[in-house]
């Protein structure tokens, strides 16, 4: 059984007990335990079931590389699936549930898949479920979705209880990884004077070196780590963060760090995760190495574990995964596990070494009384939910002549692979190291920065060296090189001297035994998380998948949260063998960020709730909100769609507003309209280029409606332009157009007409602007008193500065409704007071505020176009009958040349018309008009579409505008619009001006 040892456990505090639950069972651990070590201490070897076959699975690793022990963590608003037990620190009250099982972990119906395994080979889904087509959606998919997949998504009604944030950090040198290599590299870089940021994914410094043993400068490794950490802590130019994982390296020295602040203390004040958005001039990746598994039959049975992990559990947490352990290896390092276990009092039955000879560690093991079997292999591990027996055979051969040994745990070591993920994220290349049978960073082909030079250095075992002495030397050199690269002079210091027992060379073992038969290969797992076996990769090769990337996708090798941390090299080796090629030729799949999954919360940072997205508010926003505003998003602005009174529907409110504005008095908050000041001796010339019509001739005090086209001739904006003085114009833009048109103007001024004397300023938000609209508009302004707003002094399409009531203002006599209308601009800080004054004074004139829908209906009744409704980026002024706004006097304006292109002048273009349903109903928005015949795809030919459609309460019927082929020539004709409701709407083509054709109402 797996159990807590009486001694050892350098990371746990035995004086502090912690209680937690696993699948509802209460268990105890110690502070400093990971969930994995605490579960093992409670003899909970099985921690989940596998993805595809639902095989029982136990923990196989001790860190970020763990593929199996994924749990659902927390409850309710703090539930999170797929959390690694090995990187989860236990705390009082932790609740964890295992995944991938139904109805429970011990008894699982999906496990029947394992019996069907020979019918579920690689590519099975692709092969089986393609035909018949409807079966996928209705039969296969629902079943597969239930049996496949990892953890459950949180309940849709739950909301994350925690907060998250980003932090922008800047440093000369970033060191990723706080093992001995990272610490030494940080020190070497910092001693040069560089500013250093050092991040470590676990809660502890020193990595695995203290577990592996040896000495540095004659002292034990932990002592060295302790000294180094305290030294770094006192250096003013060093920042150290533990529980902060280097998640990804991107262009320009941009690195993401994922800091887990309170995963181990949930509920404390402050953010749970912090995403560090780091800019580093140089990055040192000291990310260590990961041990590989060995591919033998039954290597996924709970109790089979990486040798290094087993050593970690004993040394770090005082837990042994079994009482009778067998160690299988192809290298000397695994002997350390055997020795560690033996010294901790665990029975090590034997070391099965695939090699003929081993180094001095073997002698040490033998002296402790451990049996060492050279040239041997594991043929098969037997057991369901726990290792029961291990069959041992010769490494050379097919796996016959087995000897069975009763055991309850197996430690395996297939050699070590440098963690090259971060090196590779931004394009660092790898070379194959034959001696260690692994890929390591190629120092000559690092990720390149903007200057064409490398900006990432690998250090320590992530760079290839595995022995402590070499690791420290390499890290020291990398730290110095980083310091130098950022412009400092490294100190002439010697690297610390590490000493460990010498090791004999490892031998690559990709399959155990070397010629294992198919029965064994079908049980030899490469990728535990995705249930990929040796036989699957071999099958993919036989079926023609030669590219490693294709094989990955076909077999799912190295996918999902694991990203091939354990499976990568073993899978490649099997593929290379099956293709009769060499591993470096087959190559490796691409490592992509993040290194391990980071939380969605961290990615979103602060952007949730109130600050999910900026909402722009006008000065009168709160009044609207209190007065029944039904909000409509317009860009980032919120505008009132309609002011809904108690007992009214939104539609009722719109109809009331529409009628009242035509009959009495309406107020519209028009503050969102863009207002751009254009000033300078060349401003008139400039505006003549910007607008299709002439603005330079506009008289001071007057207004003109203008159209803007892109250089391709398409309408991009419209609005009223006012000439303020000889040199100054004020251009109104659409609400959504203010920033865009400001940018458009600046772009032309800065890139094309840089010698024109024009300045532009966006003063949109300086003003609160209120449209005072309706037959009583003048009356209310006159009641407030101040400037003369009579027809004679302030005629239609003119503006005046003055005072209305107590308010300094600019009054524009413009109308987008066809009514008598003023748009009054006051300083934004007085907007609410001005609005209040109008509401108060307007009571006797039947004042009502109105929203954007009323605005739309009023303008549609008048046949006024709306940018974004009648235009969609493909519409030109000619399509909308706006020829009158295209100046013929000007030599040029943006869009003029484009309008002469053949397609723009094509008489077949759809043109604007009014549309009226034959029964007075409202046409569906966006509906297409259909003509005779079908197109090449068998669809009805289209001859137009609805661009705006409303119910007009004033006219008592539906009105619409649309673009119709030959529209203006087809007045009175009936056109058909099939709706998405299977009805066919019939509408008559009419003039787009439905109301007050001669404009008498606005001109009073």
């Amino acid at each position, binding site marked *: 059984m797996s159990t807590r040892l009486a001694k050892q456990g350098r990371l746990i505090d035995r004086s502090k007990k912690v209680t937690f639950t696993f699948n509802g069972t209460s268990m105890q651990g110690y502070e400093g335990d990971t969930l994995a070590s605490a579960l093992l201490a409670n003899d909970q070897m099985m921690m989940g079931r596998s993805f595809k076959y639902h095989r029982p699975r136990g923990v196989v690793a001790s860190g970020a590389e763990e593929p199996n022990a994924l749990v659902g963590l927390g409850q309710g608003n703090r539930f999170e699936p797929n959390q690694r037990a090995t990187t989860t620190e236990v705390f009082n009250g932790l609740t964890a549930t295992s995944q991938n099982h139904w109805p429970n972990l011990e008894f699982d119906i999906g496990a029947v898949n394992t019996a069907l395994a020979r019918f579920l080979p690689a590519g099975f889904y692709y092969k089986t479920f393609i035909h018949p087509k409807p079966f996928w959606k209705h039969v296969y998919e629902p079943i597969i979705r239930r049996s496949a997949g990892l953890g459950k998504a949180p309940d849709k009604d739950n909301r994350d209880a925690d907060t998250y944030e980003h932090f922008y950090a800047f440093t000369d040198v970033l060191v990723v990884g706080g093992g001995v290599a990272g610490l030494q590299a940080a020190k070497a870089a910092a001693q040069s004077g560089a500013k250093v940021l050092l991040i470590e994914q676990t809660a502890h410094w020193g990595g695995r070196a203290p577990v592996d043993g040896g000495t540095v400068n004659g002292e034990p490794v932990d002592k060295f780590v302790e000294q180094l950490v305290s030294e770094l802590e006192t250096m003013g130019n060093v920042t150290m963060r533990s529980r902060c994982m280097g998640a990804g390296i991107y262009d320009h020295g941009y690195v993401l760090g994922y800091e887990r602040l309170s995963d181990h203390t949930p509920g404390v004040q402050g953010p749970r995760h912090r995403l560090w958005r780091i800019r580093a001039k140089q990055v040192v990746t000291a990310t260590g190495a990961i041990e590989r598994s060995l591919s033998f039959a039954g290597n996924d049975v709970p109790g089979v574990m990486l040798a290094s992990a087993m050593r970690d559990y004993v040394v770090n947490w005082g837990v042994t995964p079994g009482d009778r352990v067998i160690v299988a290896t192809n290298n000397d390092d695994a002997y350390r596990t055997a020795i560690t276990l033996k010294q901790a009092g665990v029975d090590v039955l034997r070391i099965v070494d695939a090699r003929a000879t081993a180094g001095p560690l073997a002698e040490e093991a033998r002296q402790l009384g451990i049996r060492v079997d050279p040239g041997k292999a594991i043929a098969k591990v037997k057991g369901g939910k726990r290792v029961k027996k291990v069959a041992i055979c010769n490494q050379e051969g097919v796996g016959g002549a087995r000897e069975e040994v009763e055991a309850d745990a197996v430690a395996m070591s297939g050699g070590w692979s440098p963690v090259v993920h971060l090196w590779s994220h931004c394009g660092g290349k790898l070379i194959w190291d034959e001696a260690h049978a692994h890929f390591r960073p190629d120092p000559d082909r690092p990720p390149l920065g903007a200057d064409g030079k490398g900006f990432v250095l690998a250090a320590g075992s992530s760079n290839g060296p595995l022995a402590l002495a070499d690791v420290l030397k390499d890290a020291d050199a990398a730290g110095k090189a980083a310091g130098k690269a950022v412009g400092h002079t490294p100190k002439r210091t010697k690297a610390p001297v590490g000493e460990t027992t010498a090791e004999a060379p490892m031998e690559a073992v990709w399959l155990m035994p070397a010629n294992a038969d198919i029965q064994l290969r079908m049980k030899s797992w490469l990728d535990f998380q995705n249930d990929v076996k040796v036989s699957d990769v071999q099958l993919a090769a036989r079926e023609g998948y030669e590219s490693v990337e294709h094989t990955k996708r076909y077999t799912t090798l190295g996918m999902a949260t694991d990203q091939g941390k354990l499976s990568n090299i073993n899978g490649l080796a099997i593929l290379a063998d099956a293709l009769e090629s060499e591993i470096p030729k087959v190559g490796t799949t691409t490592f992509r960020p993040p290194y391990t999954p980071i939380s969605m919360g961290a990615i979103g940072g*602060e952007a949730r709730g109130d600050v999910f997205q900026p909402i722009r508010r006008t000065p009168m926003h709160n009044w609207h909100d209190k007065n029944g505003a039904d909000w409509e998003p317009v860009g980032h*602005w919120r505008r009132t769609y309609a002011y809904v009174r108690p007992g009214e529907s939104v539609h009722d409110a719109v109809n009331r507003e529409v009628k009242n504005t035509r009959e009495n008095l309406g107020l519209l908050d028009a503050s969102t309209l863009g207002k751009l000041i254009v000033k300078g001796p060349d401003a008139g010339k400039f505006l003549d280029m910007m607008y299709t019509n002439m603005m330079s001739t506009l008289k001071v005090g007057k207004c003109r409606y203008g159209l803007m086209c892109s250089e391709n001739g398409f309408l991009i904006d419209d609005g009223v332009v006012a000439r303020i003085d000889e040199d100054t114009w004020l251009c109104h833009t659409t609400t959504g157009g203010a920033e865009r048109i400001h940018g458009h103007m600046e772009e032309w001024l800065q890139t094309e007409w840089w010698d024109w004397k024009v300045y532009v300023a966006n003063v949109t938000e300086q003003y609160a602007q209120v449209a005072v609209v309706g037959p009583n508009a003048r009356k209310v302004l006159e009641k407030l008193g101040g400037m003369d707003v009579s027809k004679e002094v302030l005629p239609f399409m003119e503006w005046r500065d003055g005072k209305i009531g107590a308010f300094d203002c600019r009054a524009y006599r413009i109308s987008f409704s066809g009514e008598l209308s003023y748009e009054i601009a006051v300083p934004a800080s007085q907007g609410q007071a001005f609005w209040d004054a109008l509401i108060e004074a307007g009571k006797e004139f039947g004042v009502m505020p109105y929203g954007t829908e009323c605005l739309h209906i009023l303008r549609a009744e008048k046949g006024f176009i709306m940018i974004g409704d009648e235009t969609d980026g493909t519409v030109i002024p000619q399509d909308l009958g706006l020829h009158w706004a295209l100046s013929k006097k000007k030599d040029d304006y943006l869009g003029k040349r484009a309008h002469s292109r053949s397609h723009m002048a094509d008489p077949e273009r759809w043109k604007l018309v009014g549309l009226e349903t034959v029964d007075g109903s409202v046409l569906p928005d966006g509906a297409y008009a259909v003509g005779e015949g079908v197109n090449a795809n068998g669809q009805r030919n289209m001859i137009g579409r609805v661009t705006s459609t409303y119910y007009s309460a004033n006219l008592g019927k539906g009105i619409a505008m649309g673009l119709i082929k030959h529209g203006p020539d087809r007045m009175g004709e009936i056109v058909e619009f099939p709706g998405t409701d299977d009805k066919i709407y019939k509408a008559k083509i009419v003039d787009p001006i439905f109301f007050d054709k001669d404009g008498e109402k606005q001109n009073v």
Partner: protein
Amino acid sequence: MSEPISALNHASFSGIAMVEECGLQGMITLRGDLSDKVLAKAVKDATGQKVPAQREVLVKGDTGVAWMSTDELLVLVPYAEVEAKLADMAGALSGTHALAVNVSDARAVFSVSGPSAREVLGKVAPVELSAEAFQPGQIRRSRLAQVAGAFWMDDAETFRVVCFRSAADYVFNLLKVAAQPGSEVGVY
């Protein structure tokens, strides 16, 4: 004139830093040739300051001038004086190609103060805010999470943050989140 009211009417929040809406600040956008002597004199007359260099802000209390771009300055004057100062400036610049326009009401101004103020800003703006890199006298136009913003330091522990008036509510809430209790980063 009716009583002008700033976007959030002096709202405040206290967390790892103090966040306060400062009320109305007179602001004039001045565009022109920054090397022009007439323009320099107009700036001097309005603020008592010289034309600032790139990313420089010269400010005392609510009067001063900030560099915005190679052809734009932000002139700061007391809110009550902005119309008069603007008229003086327009007069002084009447023979020069320049644009001076009142933008006081288009903005909201916050102060973020306390020992962790640098970190609060460092959570929302992609700017290096260590004491070596950013000091009183410097201004940055950047972004505050998802909106445009500018900031400078009044003193070693106080930032003045400017954003568009329509975004005042967003920026206030944003700074509140960034200043939430228990969220010290511990680097600045």
